[in-house]
């Protein structure tokens, strides 16, 4: 029994991490029809900001050496600035391009950033020992919850609620959705639409920074590709959850995380290597049953 | 459904609800081959919804669509198009990166033709509509009026038994409207099809329709000849406005 509860906790913890990334992907997709692969590199660079940029494999800590609050602030700031910079340089000029061009441009940005990190830090993984205390587990009624996973769950849930409220209820949120849909008209109505859209990127940077920290605390390692798989999973999550719906993105994130953990737990040993094939098959099945995703906002249904 | 020409397209007790909004509630409508039926009504009366239902883009919540007494309510939009019901859209919805001829050919191919015969049919229709010179223009370079004409031509390239036209004259100026009226009036004779015409431009409606069906709030308000409808006080109050006859309706 405790074991099943433990499995569920593991599943939800992983799901929350994917949900966090999916929120960022979903938000930016919502405002620009851009599936931003560079989100992976926001995560990576946020994590690398913890250490001094050098080719050495054992770099001294940079932001990681600061007290917790400053460190968190610093990492978030770095990623927000990075997200804004990519928006300004690469994505803003491409606004109104078709989604495939945008997608490819985000590959290009991602490729650029990844190689930049490689140039500065070399391709060798590095490690940082921050948040050792958080990484260790607490036991509650026989169920083990690593502190960082608890944190991930809380942060994911909190940010989801905050973002949904922000978009639905605040003037700025409504403006953001308006600018997302019709940029020119938003400007005609007096909105500083460029800034409003940039804000979405800033938020995605914030989410990216949060993921950098959580991931680094969990794994203790830095790697060029550390953001890639979470973003790929998030990418699936956003689509099966229902493009354009943030709760959908989060739900999708939970589902892939949970599916992954359950398969890992319950598949026989010989089939465990094929765990991810199971997860992706599930993605396809969900799409076949609900091509629009699990949560379809009425706004997403276009009338003829 | 086979493609032999159909004689009658009918909506029987069609109702459509979107959540709490009842866009149509129990509308009967019948269109015969060879006639031009006008469909008018205030904004939001359910006209476009009716066309969507008839062309398979919207499942009715209740009621049925019949083609010569065969229930087609469950068929997909494509199947209904192939069965001989063509439609145009309120926005033109052309294949913008393709040429005019290709736009028409697509419909001809959809009707089952091979590439070459499709092209011939397309050119024939363009010729008939006086658009032959524009066959090889890309649609994103067309003027607005031409766009609307091409969208009608594309519907006709299916060689349908019934053509459903949604506000074909919107955004056209007076002269263009007149040309369009002439065109629509000749459709039954050239293609042997029935035409359902939605328009807010009363000149066009009154000028070409033999019969007019009025919708209001998702319900049938009246049906009759243009003259009857024009004089019908209910229609005037709900739709035309009291000043109507002295200006817009002058035939």
């Amino acid at each position: 029994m405790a074991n099943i509860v433990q499995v569920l906790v593991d599943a939800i913890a992983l799901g929350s991490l994917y949900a966090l990334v999916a929120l960022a992907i979903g938000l930016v997709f919502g405002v620009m029809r851009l599936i931003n692969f560079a989100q992976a590199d926001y995560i990576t660079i946020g994590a690398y900001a913890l250490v001094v940029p050098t080719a050495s494999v054992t770099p001294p800590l940079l932001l990681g050496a600061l007290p917790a609050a400053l460190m968190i602030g610093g990492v978030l700031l770095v990623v927000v600035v990075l997200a804004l910079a990519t928006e300004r340089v690469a994505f803003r000029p491409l606004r109104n391009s078709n989604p495939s061009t945008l997608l490819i441009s985000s590959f290009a940005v991602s490729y650029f950033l990844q190689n930049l990190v490689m140039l500065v830090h070399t391709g060798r993984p590095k490690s940082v020992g921050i948040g050792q205390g958080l990484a260790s587990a607490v036991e509650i009624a026989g169920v083990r919850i690593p502190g960082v996973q608890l944190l991930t769950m809380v942060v994911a849930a909190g940010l989801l609620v905050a973002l949904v409220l922000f978009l639905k209820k605040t003037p700025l949120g409504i403006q953001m959705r308006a600018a997302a849909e019709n940029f020119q008209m938003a400007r005609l109505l007096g909105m500083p639409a460029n800034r409003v859209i940039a804000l979405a990127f800033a938020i995605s940077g914030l989410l990216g920074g949060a993921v950098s920290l959580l991931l680094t605390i969990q794994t203790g390692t830095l790697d060029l590709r550390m953001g890639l798989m979470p973003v790929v999973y998030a990418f699936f999550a956003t689509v099966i959850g229902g493009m354009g719906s943030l709760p959908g993105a989060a739900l999708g994130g939970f589902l892939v995380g949970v599916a992954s953990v359950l398969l890992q737990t319950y598949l026989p040993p010989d089939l465990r290597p094929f765990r991810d094939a199971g997860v992706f098959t599930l993605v396809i099945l969900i799409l076949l049953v609900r091509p629009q995703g699990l949560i379809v906002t009425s706004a997403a249904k276009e009338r003829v | 459904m086979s493609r032999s020409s159909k004689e009658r397209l009918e909506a029987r007790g069609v109702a459509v609800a979107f959540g709490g909004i009842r866009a149509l509630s129990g509308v009967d409508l019948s269109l015969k081959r060879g006639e031009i039926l006008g469909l008018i009504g205030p904004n939001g009366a359910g006209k476009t919804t009716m066309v969507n239902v008839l062309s398979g883009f919207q499942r009715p919540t209740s009621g049925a669509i019949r083609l010569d007494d065969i229930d087609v309510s469950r068929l997909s939009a494509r199947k209904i198009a192939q069965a001989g019901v063509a439609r145009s859209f309120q926005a033109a919805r052309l294949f913008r990166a393709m040429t005019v001829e290709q736009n028409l050919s697509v419909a001809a191919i959809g009707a089952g033709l091979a590439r070459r015969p499709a092209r011939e049919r397309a050119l024939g229709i363009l010729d008939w509509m006086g658009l032959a010179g524009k066959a090889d223009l890309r649609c994103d370079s067309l003027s607005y009026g031409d766009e609307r004409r091409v969208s009608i031509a594309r519907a006709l390239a299916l060689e349908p038994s019934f053509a459903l036209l949604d506000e074909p004259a919107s955004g056209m100026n007076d002269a263009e409207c007149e040309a369009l009226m002439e065109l629509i009036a000749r459709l039954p004779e050239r293609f042997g099809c029935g035409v359902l015409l939605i328009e807010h431009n009363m000149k066009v409606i009154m000028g070409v329709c033999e019969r007019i069906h009025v919708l209001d709030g998702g319900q049938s308000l009246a049906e009759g000849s243009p003259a009857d409808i024009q004089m019908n006080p209910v229609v005037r109050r709900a739709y035309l406005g009291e000043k109507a006859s002295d200006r817009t309706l002058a035939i």
Partner: protein
Amino acid sequence: EDPIKIGFAIAESGWLSNYDSAPFKAAVMKIEEINKAGGLLGRQIEYSVMDTKTEQARAATVGAQLVDGGVDMLVVSCDYDFGAPSALAAKQAGKIAFSLCAADPKMGVQGVGPLAFTANSAAQSEGIAIAEYAQKKMNLKTVYVLEDLLIEYNKSACAGFRAGWAAGGGEESILGNDTFKNDDPSIASQITRLKGLATQPDAVFICSVTPGGASAVRQLRAAGIDLPILASTAMVDNYWLNAVPGLKDFYLPAFMSLYGDDPRPEMNAFLESHKARYGEPPVSSYSVLGYSLIEQWAYAVEQAKTTESEAVVAVMNGFKDQPFTAGPTSFTDQLHIQVDRPWLIMKVENDSFRAVEVYRNSFKPDMKLLFRVGQ
């Protein structure tokens, strides 16, 4: 007289460059030493390097280009997948291809062909060595195996470990097997399974590489699992230890110690000359393999008195525990990889690896195990 030419088709950029660069520098050092001592067969050695960019297509192209330029021997990348395309180009021209540190026997007779060699031991041998060491010297009875599916190296090390462990303690003393992916952000469910075992094992073996391996160790320790952890050679470097501050009870087999505490004097001598030449110790213990590679080939050339591939290969195939810097070296006409070269067992202490002792495995992998047939 014309110089002897050695070509290096190795990764100078891309992720593989991190693995190629250290042994490459050591190889250059050896070439310089030979040249200073009067050369090989009285001829100086020249070398040229081309970058494979960690791409297979590039590897094939630069391999062909180097061979075209008339090299006598081609040194190829550390990794079988990226070394093989260059090695094939060498094979077509009848030249020897020598991989810096591929741990896959396919970099040899049965894979690339009879002219291909690797300076490393088979990954299975690492697994066997640490398994035997744990049983015999550490007195551990049961074990749990965590296999990272990222690369074949991991799978081979795990296969070797299981075979070695079963040979000593029986199949049933392996209490369980589980898999994970190197880039999994969390191995929570693997930990749950491990903790849920009816009896806890005496140790955990992880066949993995960084960063996933480091992350797994961190998560195991964070979950309160304080069992001894055994690992494979690829985890040998100190740099990842930051991820698990205060790590204890972590053992693995290594080529040599970079910290001056290697019990074998020849290793320390190598370390000193590396410091003298480059001003720093090698960044990775794989370094010595590159040095030894040149050493082995040069020795064979000297014996054969020619650089002709066939003659040199004949000499090399006759190596039987031939003493070289990297350790006793054997090749046969069937095996061009080491299967029982002694390992330096190392453990982590005070956030650094420390030499424990040299251990040579007694169980030798057969062909079936080396190629993991029916595993």
